[in-house]
């Protein structure tokens, strides 16, 4: 089973994502802050990371940049999820190497579709 790491400080959102992704036959690991997220990403080598931007300790942009500039991890697809929707923020997200950019509120099915796109 493919491994997905979900990093978001909003536990409820993590829960719902975990639930739909597990029903879609993925193994999910969760982190609730940037620091844990980055550590788990390196430990678990997940097949895909779902990453929130606004988080305590290390924000999503930084995690994405750290992973994407490291040869060991740069091939892991990253889906960025954030409440921000400004064009400028989107550009920053792309610059940090995220593969997809999804704004809140999002459709769960859309996220599942995107994940499937990368992993199947």
């Amino acid at each position: 089973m493919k491994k997905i790491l979900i990093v978001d400080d909003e536990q409820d959102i993590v829960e719902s994502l975990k639930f739909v992704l597990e029903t879609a036959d993925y193994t999910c690991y969760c982190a609730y802050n940037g620091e844990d997220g980055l550590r788990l990403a390196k430990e678990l080598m997940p097949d895909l990371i779902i990453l929130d931007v606004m988080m305590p300790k290390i924000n999503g942009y930084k995690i994405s940049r750290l992973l994407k500039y490291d040869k060991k991890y740069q091939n892991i697809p990253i889906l960025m999820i954030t409440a921000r929707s400004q064009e400028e923020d989107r550009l920053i997200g792309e610059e940090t190497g995220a593969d997809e950019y999804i704004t809140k509120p999002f459709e769960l099915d859309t996220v599942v579709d995107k994940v499937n796109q990368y992993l199947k």
Partner: protein
Amino acid sequence: MIRILFISTRKEKIDQYISILSPKYEFITLASETNILDSINLAVPDIIILDTNSGNIDFKNLIKKIKSYTDNSVILLLTAKNFNNRDLIKNANAFLQEDFTDEMIVNTINMNLRMRESLARLSNTNKDLADSLYRLNALYSTSSQFAGTLDKKKLINFMIEGIDKALSFSLTCTLSFCTENEPVLLINSLYELSDEILNALKLRTIYQYKSLFEDKNLPYEVNINNLKTIKHIKYPANRFTFTLFQFDNLFSPITLGDNFFGCVEIFKDAPFSAEDATCFRTIAQQVALPLKSATLYQEIKETNLKLEKLERLKSEFISIVSHELRTPLTSIKNSLDILLSGRCGEVTEASEKFLTMAKRNVQRLSGIINDLLDLSKIEAGKMDFNCKNLNINQVIEYVKSALSIVAKEKGLTLLTEENKNLPEIYADSQRLEQVLTNLVSNAIKFTPEGKSIKIISELKNFDELSINPLFQNINSKQKGEYIVVSVKDEGIGIAEKDLLRAFDKFAQIENSLSRKVGGSGLGLPIAKQLIEAHHGIIWCDSELNKGSTFYFAIPVAKNNSDKNTENLLLSR
């Protein structure tokens, strides 16, 4: 008493003139040249009579000398009948002839005296006139300086300069309450001041200031010990050796109604005239009005800054709150989606009904938050527009395809009348879709079953737009060609008194009707802002119970009209 100096060597003439004039005038006779100038020096005579027949005297030279001593004396020549020494004639005021009767002599003298008096008066008047003119000029230039600035420090400086120009003081002392945060004593002096004079000035100014208010409360507290003093000395190398008592002074408060800006006192080592006083008070009064304007201007500026800050805070607040609201809303929506999808077990008909209700309201809330965010972004000038040339009919097609199902569900027909070959407009298609979606959704909401809604696109000149006068901007200089889109419904309409407020965000929220039908009520204000950002116009016509028509007009793209003119040129 009138003083007459008679110079003659002829005894009979001296006797004659003494008998005629000495009773009435102080009459002095001299027979030789030697004492004449001493006598004039002692007391300037009003009239000098020179007997040209007194041989041995060089009258030409004598007159020259006399004139160098005094030009106030009237010079009369006693001459023979056919006297024609041109040099002398030129220099004398009048002539007494040998054969004049006593009466004629007296008359000639009196006439010359009167003339001299008139001349003196005239010259005085002339001097006064020149003086007044000079003052008037000083006043005029000062008041035009006053009109040219809203800086209070400059105004006070102009006042002091103006007073100096008009009255030329030795020393002026201004107690100002309006130029800095604390009371300031401004001292402008020709020469350096001793500490004694400086202290005396401070005490005196404070005393004068306090005496203006007698029993009443002082507008500002002034403390002699820490009164800030600013000195401007014109010639610092010199020093005043007088005490204040040796100066003449003028004092005036600087006030306008209840506004007290300060007071000013000037000192001079010569007496001030009544005109000086009037001029001084005029300048002190004149500065009060611009000072008041400057104060108001400053207040408006400060208020504006505060308002801008508040407005920014409000926008930031809305944007932060909206983001914060979205996150929990996303969780609610996700949970509902999971439940509704049946992933957690079977959904009964009743639970589906309530889950759908919850989801619908989450969507509604999310719509309101989006609207609020949009509005705050537009108001903060942070809305990004992705403009390109486009045909308005694309927008209409998009909205039609998105909303005709909704209209059909409500039993309404959505019709379009798209004029072909419309020129392009330069616009952000997504934003125009947002506007049109809003107008059409409103029309669907407010139109009863069985009726229809029509969207029309056409090309019109600005003058043919026939904008409802309620929405016309009198100051606008718009002209040229516009693409007009209208959304006509057969709904409940809007009463005329509410029409003007249709695009007002607060009024709409208050509108009970929109509340009943749902929606944030921010759609129209957003539409207005979006259209105006496209240099367009939005308005509506409505009749209660018959229906409303909402219009928006966007100017035809510039290069587009260039193309049109090119085409015209080619077709010729």
